[in-house]
């Protein structure tokens, strides 16, 4: 039995008096593909943002690759993590954003090579060779010298995926990566992610409104509501045979809104 790669224990996140996450606990096994679904405001994006250290926690513990994310030991006592510890922990994790967040002043190739060169000391030639492989994989090798502004939304998102992959994280977070795309561009991004899921043993957490894709992609689906997990299980169970009333009504609304399941 291997240990979980992510352990979330009694996680609380409040914005003012509003509890976005309310005593949340779950584990993720290495290589697992997890889909987080639920109504907006249910806290699923907040979980990804907390794992990426874009958001602090209010209470609880998170363990990643065997180390505490927000805590560290000093003189045998547990203390809040400092920036150096967070920096070390972040190297395990990569993230792809809803709005791509590519660096607009850099070329596609530079977007991908910047972080490996700066944070890992990868020699430029090696970083560029690796970036070209990744661009090949996402089907954009011919766009290496383009600026992000010259790309379509789908192409931008594929570059963003390549940028995250260049750092070789063990865990990848996908935050509604197709929500900002025109419908006809969604497919090309999902195709890349499917290949990624099939060809790598990376652990992936996916927040999405694409139920059909979640069904196909995920080993396990977590349904969130009001900062708690209402129901979880394999996609067949959640999508075809949900037990909880709240899951059923959420899926009904999603289907009524025209999303495929």
């Amino acid at each position: 039995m291997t240990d979980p790669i992510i352990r979330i224990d009694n996680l609380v996140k409040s914005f003012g008096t509003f509890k976005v996450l309310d005593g949340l606990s779950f584990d993720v096994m290495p290589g697992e593909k997890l889909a987080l679904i639920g109504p907006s405001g249910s806290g699923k994006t907040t979980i990804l943002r907390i794992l990426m250290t874009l958001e602090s926690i209010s209470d609880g513990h998170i363990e990643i690759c065997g180390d505490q994310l927000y805590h560290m030991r000093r003189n045998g006592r547990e203390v809040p993590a400092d920036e150096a510890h967070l920096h070390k922990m972040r190297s395990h994790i990569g993230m792809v954003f809803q709005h791509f967040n590519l660096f607009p002043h850099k070329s596609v190739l530079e977007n991908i090579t910047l972080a490996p060169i700066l944070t890992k000391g990868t020699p430029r030639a090696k970083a560029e060779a690796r970036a070209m492989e990744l661009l090949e994989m996402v089907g954009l090798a011919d766009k290496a010298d383009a600026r992000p502004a010259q790309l379509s939304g789908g192409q931008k998102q594929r570059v963003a995926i390549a940028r995250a992959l260049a750092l070789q994280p063990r865990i990848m977070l996908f935050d509604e990566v197709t929500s900002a795309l025109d419908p006809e561009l969604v497919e090309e991004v999902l195709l890349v992610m499917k290949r990624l899921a099939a060809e790598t043993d990376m652990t992936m957490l996916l927040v999405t409104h694409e139920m059909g894709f979640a069904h196909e992609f995920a080993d396990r689906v977590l349904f969130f509501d009001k900062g708690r997990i209402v129901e979880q299980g394999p996609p067949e169970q959640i999508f075809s045979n949900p037990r909880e009333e709240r899951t059923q009504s959420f899926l009904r609304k999603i289907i009524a809104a025209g999303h495929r399941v």
Partner: protein
Amino acid sequence: MEWDWAFVWQIMPTLLAGLKLTLLVTLLAAVVAAVLGLALAILRRSGNRAVARGTAALSEFIRGTPLLVQLYFIFYVLPDIGIRLPALLAGVIGMGLHYATYTAEVYRAGIENVPRGQWEAARATNLTMRQTWVHVIVPQAVPPMIPALANYLIAMFKETPLLSAITVLELMNQAKSVANTYYRYIEPMTLVGVFFLAMSLVSVVFLRVLEARFGRMAK
């Protein structure tokens, strides 16, 4: 009163010396304003609330009082508490400090205009704070600032005659002194106006070029 060309040529060297000093003061004060403004902008973003508020209050105070009063204060009042500055230095500090409060606003707006997603992408790719500033934030924040900064440079240039009040022998002061010596005002004052107009016209063209170059990049 008639225009006297001979007089014009006679006073020209004095006026050109004044012009040279005017340009020098503008340049030095601009450097002070650029550097000090950045410091003010960073202090205002400080996590320490007392520092951030103190900086904001200081900027508000400096911007809310006339530059002329500040110059008098630095040159004529500070000696009373033992700080005696040469006129040129007092002028550079006075103008630099005054305009730093404006350039600080330009920096602040430029930095705040960089979308939050850029900070987040930098963190998600594990850049350090320093790397984030150097490679992600500053390269995006600075180009849109350049036309606004150049605008303040030109404004500063046109305010240098105020320094005549604290005995700096810049263009206006030189013109005043030759005028007072010969009791002829038309030539010196006209020439001062012409010099400033000529420099301003050149600056405006320069500014247009900057706007075309960097204004576009901002989009």
